């Protein structure tokens, strides 16, 4: 946005109206940005403490809690479970979600519109209510909770992110490209592989990334659909925090934050993540 045109009066007195407006807006914005970033900084800061508590400021600094992570087998086990379930849920979400997006994106029919709303509805429904209803469903048909029921539940809450981003990419695609490829003799499958897919790939990747993070971070669905043997990382961390404030959790949080920032920067480069979220 250009700066607002200067008033026509031409006087050189200080423009209090402009000044006050900029100071207030910039001031609040900077405050909000500090608020946004403070928690991340604080977690990384205290994770380097040499003490046994999350006292601030730390009495001294060390890497002991990061070293402690090597022995924290409960957290490692939960992390492996969460990564496995998230990988399956993301794979299924991309497979089913991209296929469904192709079907509904360019279709003007009412069915396509209804399906679009249906596929996106897990985004606004309370996930806890869905988790509970899934548990009731599986127990009613006599299927015990297992990693499989967990993957099914996670796929339902992850797939909307893939559908939303893929449908948006398809909507932006110029259809005459497909006509051109077809008139040059390309078959449907060849046209999809060589024209459609390369154009929507960034959208699929961004959607898949967010779907993965949503599954990895999910608590409400996991609470109901996991069996006793399948500990999930966010639940493990949550229960650790409810009990005692464990500094190992701070070190693990530090690792998760660094990995997230790394993945975000990669996704920004290859898929233009921020453009897809605005």
């Amino acid at each position: 946005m250009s700066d607002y045109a200067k008033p026509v009066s031409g006087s050189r007195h200080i423009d209090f109206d402009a000044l006050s407006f900029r100071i207030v807006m910039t001031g609040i914005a900077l405050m909000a940005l500090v608020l946004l970033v403070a928690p991340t900084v604080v977690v990384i800061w205290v994770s380097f403490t040499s003490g046994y508590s999350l006292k601030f400021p730390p009495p001294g600094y060390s890497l002991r809690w990061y070293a402690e992570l090597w022995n924290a087998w409960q957290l490692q086990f939960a992390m492996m479970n969460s990564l496995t379930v998230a990988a399956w849920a993301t794979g299924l979400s991309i497979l089913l979600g991209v296929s469904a997006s192709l079907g509904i994106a360019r279709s003007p029919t009412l069915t396509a519109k209804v399906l679009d709303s249906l596929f996106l509805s897990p985004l606004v429904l309370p996930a806890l209510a869905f988790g509970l209803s899934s548990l009731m469903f599986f127990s009613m048909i006599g299927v015990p909770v297992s990693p499989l029921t967990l993957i099914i539940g996670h796929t339902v809450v992850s797939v909307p992110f893939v559908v939303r981003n893929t449908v948006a990419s398809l909507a932006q695609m110029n259809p005459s490209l497909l006509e051109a490829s077809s008139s040059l003799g390309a078959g449907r499958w060849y046209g999809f592989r060589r024209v459609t897919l390369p154009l929507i790939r960034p959208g699929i990747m961004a959607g898949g990334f967010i779907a993965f993070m949503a599954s990895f971070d999910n608590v409400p669905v996991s609470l109901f659909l996991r069996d006793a043997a399948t500990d999930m990382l966010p639940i493990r961390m949550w229960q650790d925090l409810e009990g005692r404030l464990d500094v190992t959790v701070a070190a693990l949080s530090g690792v998760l934050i660094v990995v997230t920032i790394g993945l975000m920067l990669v996704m920004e480069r290859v898929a233009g993540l921020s453009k897809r979220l605005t």
Partner: protein
Amino acid sequence: MAATLRDVTTYDLKLAAPLAAGFVLFFVTPLVILLALSFQTDPQGGHYGLTQYVNFLGDSFSLGVLGSTLWLGVKVTVLTLLLGYPVAWLHQRSPGWARGLIMLLVLLPLLTSVVVRTFAWVVILGRQGIVNATLSWIGLIDTPLKLLYTEGGVVVALAQVQMPLMVLPIITALSRIDPNFADASSVLGAGHWRTFRKVILPLSLPGIVAGCLLTYAAAITAFITQSLIGGGQMLFMPMYIYQQASTLQNWPFAAAISIVFLVSVLVVVSIFNALGRLSRGYANA
């Protein structure tokens, strides 16, 4: 010819069939079962009626939980809007490198694990946390303030956790405003405040409504943040459902609370959607 042309640019609707089937089986059916179960009069089953709903709506404790949850969402949404709008405004008028930085700062909380973000607030608000340490260092307080396990703490933590959901749609809305409007308003003699109030704010309404919808829905369902920052004394709907379902194994009542909560969320979403349509008509006029 026209028919064959349309043929290559659209894909068969049947491609959506596998996901549609999956959703009917694993999403719609469970919700139908939830609805059915909410009409069971006792956990052992057999009889159907409105008992659970009568119990919920006739109980001042349950109504209080629902009310405080919906009210919590309002407070979080208002705070998030007040803080988030200037961030979007600053992003819009910043040079390229600063835009990238602001975007990174906004996206980071969105993609960081909710447990990690909430954990950070436990560290910040705790008795030995950064707020209390700073206040006692300046000499403002002698004994640590109780910040954790208060509603104020929950509101601030939720505002931080959900702020990206508010900022992103407003950035989109602001980027669509023709800068000539602000210039015209200025040339016609309006100051910055007046231009903001009369031109920029109304034109960005679609983004505000979209942001408020996402923030509100996320804030009232934010199970982890509510329970970790709120502690045991404060009960909100998601935890209430979980307690009834898991600890007390009272599935019919849990189902009824879930339905009441679902319907409340849907009502709020429809109100925001209606406002969104109105505001878009206004912004495009």
